[in-house]
């Protein structure tokens, strides 16, 4: 059959966000592809240099609508470290609670979207229905369903009242039961398994050399989680585990994400039950001393890295945002080559692309020749603990 070019995007039902793939197919099989992810490039990094620390946080939060708390936290964490401000334990716990609730809602959202990509709308509806419980909790705690705006330099904006904590805890048992139901559904829904198993396989070596992060890397057996590697907030004080899997395909990523929902739930419950007293914010100076930091954070999709340089004023000299989705695109391009056209949505969805994050930055890469010449480093490559 002759080769045809199928443009996917920028406006396409599989993609809720603008992105463009030019998929060259031979019949149904993909032989080459080009990605263009720049459709929502807005210029946030430039704007961040021009706004003070108070006004920049809502902007940083709006890098992405799903991992908004991640970006705000990683930024304020970095600034606080440069300033040498230690935020009070209560603020750290509140940040952790919001962060893990955000991870839960994001993973549930992902599970639904992945099911939708393979046409399984019922699971899509159910996960989003249950996600509303998480969103309600977030709304009660922070005042907004999506952009929580809980962070400010030196602590958090809002305190949690005992009644709010109780209401949030009351929702937990229902969610626990739902997570158990999802585990069952993913295990025994045959048509979905045929679409997930063996699709988008990424070996451990590939995951490492393509720089995959987050659940994508962890599903390939790479134990890479910033929360354990470079503990921030209270992750070194509370009990939790890194979820990994060895399947390396979409099925493995699904299992990792469902496992992480359960872990996050445990963390949220632990934090709510052991919420320390005290103030919620420390006095932070207006301006930050000159300095630089690479602030890392484990967002739902993987590692977010903000490289922040300050210059003694109330503005940053430079903030360089590396989003998890950007790190994962190379592996996606690699996974897609040779797959049927029908697998494009599910493989792309499997990394949980957050294109608004990514499209500050963009790449176009035909995936065939990626990484052929990369020499394997001779050290241990186990990435296990």
């Amino acid at each position, binding site marked *: 059959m002759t080769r045809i070019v199928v443009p996917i995007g920028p406006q396409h039902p599989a993609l809720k966000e603008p992105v463009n793939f030019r998929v060259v197919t031979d019949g*149904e099989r993909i032989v080459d592809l080009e990605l263009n992810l720049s459709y929502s490039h807005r210029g946030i990094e430039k704007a961040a240099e021009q706004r003070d620390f108070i006004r920049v946080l809502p902007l940083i939060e709006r890098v992405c609508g799903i991992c908004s708390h991640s970006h705000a936290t990683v930024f304020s964490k970095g600034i606080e470290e440069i300033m040498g401000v230690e935020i009070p334990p209560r603020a750290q716990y509140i940040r952790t609670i919001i962060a893990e609730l955000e991870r839960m809602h994001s993973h549930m959202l992902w599970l639904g979207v992945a099911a939708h990509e393979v046409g399984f*709308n019922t699971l899509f509806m159910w996960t989003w229905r249950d996600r509303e419980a998480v969103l309600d909790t977030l709304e009660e705690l922070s005042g907004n369903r999506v952009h929580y705006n809980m962070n400010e330099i030196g602590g958090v904006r809002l305190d949690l009242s005992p009644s709010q904590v109780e209401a949030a805890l009351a929702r937990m048992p229902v969610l626990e039961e739902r997570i158990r139901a999802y585990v069952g559904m993913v295990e025994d829904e045959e048509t979905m398994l045929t679409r997930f198993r063996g699709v988008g396989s990424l070996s451990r070596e590939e995951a490492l050399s393509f720089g995959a992060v987050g659940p994508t890397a962890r599903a390939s057996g790479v134990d890479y989680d910033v929360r354990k590697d470079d503990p921030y907030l209270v992750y070194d004080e509370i009990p939790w585990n890194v979820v990994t899997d060895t399947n390396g395909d979409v099925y493995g990523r699904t299992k990792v994400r469902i496992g992480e929902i359960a872990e996050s739930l445990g963390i949220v419950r632990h934090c709510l039950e052991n919420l320390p007293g005290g103030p919620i914010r420390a006095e932070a100076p207006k301006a930050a001393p000159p300095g630089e930091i690479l602030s890392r954070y484990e967002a739902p999709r993987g590692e977010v890295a903000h490289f922040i340089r300050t210059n003694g004023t109330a503005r940053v000299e430079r903030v360089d945002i590396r989003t998890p989705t950007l790190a994962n695109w190379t592996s996606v391009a690699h996974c897609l080559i040779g797959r049927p056209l*029908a*697998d494009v949505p599910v493989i792309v969805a499997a990394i949980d692309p957050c294109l608004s994050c990514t499209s500050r930055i963009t790449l176009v890469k035909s995936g065939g020749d990626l990484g052929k010449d990369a020499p394997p480093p001779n050290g241990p490559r186990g990435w296990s603990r």
Partner: protein
Amino acid sequence: MTDPFLLIAYILLFPGFLFLFAYSMTFEFLDRRIVARMQNRVGPPFFQPFADLVKTLGKEVIDPRGVDRPIFDAAPVVALAAVMTSFLYVPIIGPSPLAFQGDLVLVLYLLTLPTLALMLLGWLSRNIYAAVGGIRAVTMLFIYEVPFFLALMMPTLMAGTWSISDIMAWQEEHLCLAILQPIAFIVALIGLQAKLERTPFDIPEAETEIVAGPWTELTGRRLALMHLANETSAVVGSALIAAVFLGGLAFPWTVESAILSATVGFLLFLAKTVAILLVLSIIRAATARVRLDQLNTIGWKYLTMAALAQVGIVLVMMASGVGI
């Protein structure tokens, strides 16, 4: 029913086109409502399919650049006409007055036409999604048509007739064919699901892959007619399976009055088609879309094999005289 006026009334009003139209609307409503309820939501109101149809009819018709307009206009009409014609041969209130030996073949043939029209539309649309969708539709046709036809031919083997009405009549004296040929019944149901391009077989119009497949460039009345053709296909398909496998209007005891008998038969027809719809809706809600290559495996390895096994079983049953 030799009176020409009665015949015209049969064709146009009841249980002909008008009834088919109304019933297909109800059918789509039921389908959407059942699926919505299984997804734990309310679902559309009763008039929804009708409102959709009227609204789509009133939308602007846009011709894609370089499209062959007459054929583009004609294809949906042909699809709809084929399905409506096929409905006349399916018994609804007693045997169809137009029945003849071999009408089963005609109905099966006419039910294939919408798919071909869809492929034509896909090719004509000058749109890459539509073209890919068109190819997928035809590829799928080759896969599911063999087991579907085999499954529907099995009753003819046992009943010894090629007329739907006669097969139905045969079941009045014998057991219902769904019990005698369970494998063929299941294969036919799955085949119907594939024919109607519903999940897990909505490969040609896979929304997340190729937007809406052959439907992508359809607007206004073309879209409305194709939708209507699809909805009526659902009614005709379930009515066909109800007649051939579930004994159609046959009921075990005899009713004296002709009108009462027709009414009971009609109600039975409604009940059986809705039951089939329920099964189809459950399949739609409980499955994910399969890939074309996976459908190939399913179609040839399992469905066709099952249908062939059923042929063997039927031949053995006929030779030994079981159930006949």
